[in-house]
């Protein structure tokens, strides 16, 4: 019985993948056709075959291409990492203390609507290196999202959890460690999921403006040097990089809250 169930599951999975594969093939086909059509009226969108050729001819074994990957990932790591490092404690402080909220929130609410890219000039003027300014802008992108999510998460911890923990004899410090922190993890996870997406958004734009290396820079250079194949290689690379980062974040989230994997209340909330 169980074996049969497993087989059916495997078949179902394969079928799901199979549909996905068909969709990708169809997408590439449409792209090929449109690319070919566009060239007939002077458009410059390269076809998948041209892009693949360019990629294997001059990118796969070019260390400079892979340095772009490394540079972008490193910036994301720093920007996203600092956003968590400062954003989570600030969100918790805002959520737990009315005083902190009253002092910090007005400033926060004025700064929050400013799009991360509006920080580019100030960032370049302030930080000594371009590297630091790009990291700062990516940091800004993820920071506000994580703070707001953690803040909101703290405020929405059911009051009965605190009441019950107090009834059972827990001290405030224990309640903080064993109730507040675990209860806020799902909100941290939401903040991370949103944050990593914004980080890549902002990073690519910032690299186009100020970088010397990076996948955003690569894409921009492809445009400036009138080499559309490079633009597409850059775009697809960014897509893959963003996807990989999201998977890594998913993995971290799953490790942070093993209990949520089985809980219908939390599963599929994202």
């Amino acid at each position, binding site marked *: 019985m169980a074996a049969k169930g497993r087989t059916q599951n495997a078949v179902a999975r394969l079928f799901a993948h199979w549909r996905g594969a068909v969709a990708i093939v169809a997408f590439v086909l449409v792209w090929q056709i449109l690319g070919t059509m566009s060239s007939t009226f002077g458009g410059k969108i390269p076809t998948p075959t041209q892009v693949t050729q360019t990629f294997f001819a001059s990118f796969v074994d070019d260390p400079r291409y892979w340095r772009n990957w490394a540079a972008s990932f490193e910036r994301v790591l720093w920007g996203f990492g600092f956003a968590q490092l400062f954003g989570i404690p600030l969100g918790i402080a805002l959520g737990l203390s009315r005083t902190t909220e009253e002092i910090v929130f007005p400033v926060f609410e004025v700064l929050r609507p400013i799009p991360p890219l509006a920080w580019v000039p100030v960032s370049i003027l302030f930080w000594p290196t371009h590297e630091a300014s790009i990291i700062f802008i990516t940091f800004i992108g993820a920071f506000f999202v994580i703070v707001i999510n953690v803040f909101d998460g703290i405020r929405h911890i059911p009051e009965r959890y605190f009441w019950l923990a107090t009834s*059972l004899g827990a001290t405030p410090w224990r309640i903080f460690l064993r109730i507040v922190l675990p209860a806020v993890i799902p909100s941290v996870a939401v903040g991370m999921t949103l944050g990593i997406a914004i980080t890549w958004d902002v990073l690519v734009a910032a690299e186009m403006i100020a970088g010397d290396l990076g996948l955003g820079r690569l894409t921009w250079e492809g445009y400036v040097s009138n080499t559309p194949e490079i633009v597409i290689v850059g775009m697809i690379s960014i897509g893959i990089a963003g996807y990989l980062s999201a998977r890594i974040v998913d993995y971290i989230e799953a490790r942070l809250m093993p209990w949520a994997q089985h809980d219908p209340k939390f599963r599929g909330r994202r």
Partner: protein
Amino acid sequence: MRSVASAPATAVNGAVTIDAVGKVYGETVVALEDCSLEIAAGEFLALVGPSGCGKSTLLNILAGFDHPTRGTVTLDGAPLASADRAAHPGPDRIVVFQEGALFPWKTVLDNVTYGLKVQRQTAPEEARARALDMLARCGGLDRVAHQFPGQISSGMQRRVELVRALINDPKMLLLDEPFRAMDTVSKGRMHQHLLDIHAQFPKTVFFITHDLEEAILLADTVAVMTTRPGRIRSRVAVDLPRPRHARMIASERFVALKEQLIAAVHEEALKAFERGERELA
């Protein structure tokens, strides 16, 4: 399931006196006024009344989550709460909430041992052993000991919550409509379970409900609260024999008690309705 009707293992205590308790929110909202109620040690008291009449307020005062603005509450003769002085929440009075309050990030076992752990009176190994033993005694729950609350049914979650409360050997259990959201079959099972538990661990129970049949089936005494400002309007002693069983619902005595309660509650509900009060609970 069989009821355990053996002699109580621990000394029965947990007598509560609520004396002329009042609760005013802000300046104008009078939730409770001159509310007095005696609950004997080991008594199962069910409190019924229209929505928003202050049942939960009274429970919160007993638990120590809120304070009365007038009157006093004593537990076994010792002052518990008085005007503007909240009782300190403690492991002698544990609440089971309608929405459930198991910590989703802890396994069933860790939820049950949490109280013993934070009170630091029991060695971790002993706490685990006691928890497993108690889970086993309360309907074979030890088999879900290592699961997370999200993995078990809501009925089982409530049972685990009862165990989490009982392991602290509380003087009283405060149950705030714990079975409200359940379907009829699960509810019936939970009633039988609670009756068994109460026979096995004869604690004072303060049970809030809207369901009159539930109140009669479970309780020794049903207290009816007036519409806001909440006061105890009447007490009805349920003289049905124990062990109780769901079949008793059809008995003559049960029906008579129910009619008596319906009349009382209906009158209060009508008053509330005529005043056009919004549902608060």
